[in-house]
């Protein structure tokens, strides 16, 4: 009751004030009579991306995409990601990734390498790298040559993409380990070394880096892998050099396989003992 009195008392004041305005302010927008808090929402699915011009190079949770039947390479890639990551369906993932690659392919002019700044949609659209990396990862054991080809496709799309050269190095190493012919193995190891060195070249340790971080080496796993290859090739000096760089790279960053650090130190110590005994 008191409340009602209060509001009624204010009404004349409001009317006076409102009339006094020469140009009464309009509301920004008249809320729609259909607006319902928590219900009113944009009409399109914000989780389904419209390329601009690049496809989304990531994984959207499959249930959020509301795709009933894949219709383009990105849809197939997303279903493949779902199959690989959530369902453990490797065969299904490979099939969908292959379909995606076939629909986004330089060979049939369904994708392009972007070499100038795009200002909007381009035709054909840019080549997708995620699907090629994923497919390569699943083909490494069964078809390593195809895997390397896919990795190289990614380097054509983005030559600076970290980890791709290292992945190529890993595949060549696996191929070398499986080779029965020593010369073939040696050649494959050499290609692995080349790939790993290309990886290192993408993130060189510059004086500025040392200044701001204190690091004198990086890419610990690459140095570890190179050391292992050199050990197999009997190139002890190179092996020890890489182990030294591995220890520098892990000085402030440790390692997932932290026992590798102890192993590196043991191997360096053993090599040092051998060198001393020789001299």
């Amino acid at each position, binding site marked *: 009751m*008191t*409340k009602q009195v*209060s509001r009624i*008392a*204010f009404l004349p004041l409001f009317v*006076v*004030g*409102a009339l*006094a*305005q020469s140009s009464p*302010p309009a509301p*920004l*927008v008249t*809320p729609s009579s259909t607006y319902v*808090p*928590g219900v*009113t*929402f944009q009409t399109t699915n*914000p*989780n389904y991306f*419209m*390329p*601009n*011009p*690049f496809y989304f*190079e*990531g*994984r959207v949770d499959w*249930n*959020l995409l509301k795709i009933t039947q894949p219709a383009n390479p990105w849809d197939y890639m997303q279903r493949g990601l779902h199959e690989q990551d959530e369902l453990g369906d490797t065969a299904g993932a490979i099939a969908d990734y292959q379909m995606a690659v076939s629909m986004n392919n330089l060979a049939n002019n369904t994708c392009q390498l972007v070499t*100038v*700044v*795009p*200002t909007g949609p381009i035709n054909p659209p840019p080549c997708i790298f995620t699907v090629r*990396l*994923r497919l390569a990862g699943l083909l490494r054991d069964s078809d390593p040559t195809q895997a390397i080809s896919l990795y190289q496709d990614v380097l054509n*799309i*983005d*030559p600076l*993409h*970290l*980890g791709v050269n290292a992945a190529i190095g890993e595949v060549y190493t696996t191929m070398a380990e499986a080779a029965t012919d020593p010369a073939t193995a040696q050649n494959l190891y050499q290609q692995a070394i080349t790939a790993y060195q290309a990886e290192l*070249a993408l*993130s*060189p340790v*510059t004086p500025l*880096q040392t*200044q*701001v971080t204190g690091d004198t080496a*990086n*890419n*610990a796993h690459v140095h570890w892998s190179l050391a292992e290859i050199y050990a197999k090739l009997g190139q002890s000096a190179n092996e020890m050099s890489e182990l030294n760089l591995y220890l520098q790279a*892990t000085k402030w*960053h440790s390692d*997932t396989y*932290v*026992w590798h650090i*102890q192993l590196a130190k*043991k*191997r360096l110590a053993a090599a040092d003992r051998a060198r001393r005994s020789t001299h």
Partner: protein
Amino acid sequence: MRTTLVSCLPLLAVIGLPLFAQRPVGGLTESAFKDQPYQKPQNCLPCHQRQFDEMRTSVKSGYRSVSPLFNGLETSGNFLNGGLLRPVYADSTKTTTDATGKVIPFNTNMFTTRDYVNVNQVRAGFCFSCHNGPIERNGDNPAAREVPELAGTGPNFVPELFRPLRDYHFVDASGNQVLPATIGGDPPPGATPSIGANAIHCDICHNIGGADLSRSLQADGIGNNSVLFNHTVEKVGPFLQPVAVKGDFHVASNNPEKIAFLRSSAFCNACHDVRVPTALPGDLQHFENDVNAGGQNVTYYRLENLSTEWQLGAYNSTNNPFGKVIRCQDCHMSNFPYGGNSTYTVGDLNITSPTPAQFFTNYAAVPGGVSTEQNFPLQQRKVVNHHFTGVDVPLLYTSELQARVDPTYPDAYQPGVDEYGIPLALAQRRQDLLDAAVRISLAKTDTTAKLGQIFTVRAECVALTGHRFPAGFSQERTGYIQLSVTDDNGFLLYQSGYVVDKPHPETGELQPDGNLSDEDNEHIHAVVDPGNHNRDPTKPYPNGSTANAGHTNQVFEAGPDDGSDARLFFGFNEGLVLFRNELTRIALPGQGIGRTDASGKAIVVTKPHYEETFSAALANTVDNFRSLQPLVPHTYSYDITLPTQAELAELGITSIKAPLHVHAQINYEHFPPLFVRFLIRTTGPNGPSGHDLGLLSEQRLDDLLKSLPALATADTTVNVQE
């Protein structure tokens, strides 16, 4: 009562006329009540002591405006784009263009623009518009303006004169604005906080008028403070038929639509999506623009995506463990997580976790004749609390908060509990809230491993939140799995999600300091360029001899625990499981990436190059799907190779001792230290301003950035076959 009002009518009418005449046009709703300036929260305290006390322990109120991180982030964005994030006002003489290319006045900001036609209208006051929208709107009246318009922006920007927003939030005893003696300096002697220092406080939320569809880029009232605000005595509370307020200090709204809006998640959604204006073509991986008329050139990317996550999630339905819509208020304004537990199943995980939507019964205002007209008796009813507990604790010392916001501002780590047993300490409530947010299981891990071979650990995680985990500023908020595998003697066979105590020469920490909360995960190593002030002031900003505006990565390389990219892009089951979304900069052909090759030559890309950026202002796309989807379990595998017998022999170990012990825990950090260090440097004496803006330091980071380990844990054992 009637007598008092009637007698006041002539006076109020006289006062009211100039108020109406000066009323700014943007962002207002229509309210059939008289204008009233925004009030400091202390003015609400006499009748709403409980709410005031609760609110003061939140970061939303007060801290949000003086936060060194918020101020540093806003400052850094301005350093990159030349001050475009600062507001313009009604008296601005600047111009911009509409979608047709027509030159139009540029005199409205993100909060006061009625219909966006140019991306710069969204940029203007972009941060300030959410953190202090109605106060920004007041700025259309020069006498009430707190944050000035910059005289020079873009190429005319002068970083040396740039002040952090919080410099403007002081007044003297007469209510006139006073500034720190030096840019970024201490509060002026004798100064008190301005109304803007209070950020989101009582009079912001309780002045709401409804959703502002034309200022929401998808015309749905979501994001970027797309709310209509009253500027009147009408205060919107949660109850219909409220009683009259003593002395008519305000009128308690009885408008059912406004009350329903306040009680809904839509109210929170209006701010808790943040869509960053990005010049055409916009987000390079996801085209979205303003769908309102004339907004076709107003493109953006999604920074905070929390409200969209909730809107499309299980909590905005009855298809969740609680069988009803769970609103934002049900977790962040209830007694959650202190109101008892529920047990339910998500996928194959059995969950016990706190129950949302539990509310205490209390008075909405102080009873006993304090708050109601004619001592009208109040009834007790279910009430919300105003703790607004989230994932942050202040990066300010308590003494600083007291100097800048309120002399009674409480310590975020204070002891004790309130009348309901809820911790008074924000830090403890943050811990408890986050403890309720996520669960982990190792039940699907291989049961047997062999020397020299791979075995697989499977960590199944689920978020129990109404949005993804983490949410909000989810490109920096960080959750991750820390995992270790040891043998029965404690020999460490594998680790992920670890941190290493190390020096940080870039911010003056020359030796490891024993603090692990200031260390980043080891999936990448990155250092962000802070820019510098070595510029030629006669040339357009930021050009000059060696000057640059920074924000690119000076260092960016894969670390030994590189799981985030290895898992997402390569599909490898190795390395860090990181629940953190990612800001990305796609460098386009011809653009530099801010680093040099081994020969010292600047790297300029020839093909598009994707790279994580820690600058929201530099990003031109974003991945908001690396965080953990709510109520959908996800299993992360670790393919772990055990050492061979020969390797063990080299190490001097006869064999590993079974069983293996696998331990996993989910940790949380509110900001990655490298991100804070970027802001330390860019707002420091070597940054673009050329002087220390007094915001962040390595010492502050060490003292106040506190990571939270073990929100959830799981353990299992694995047999070993030799």
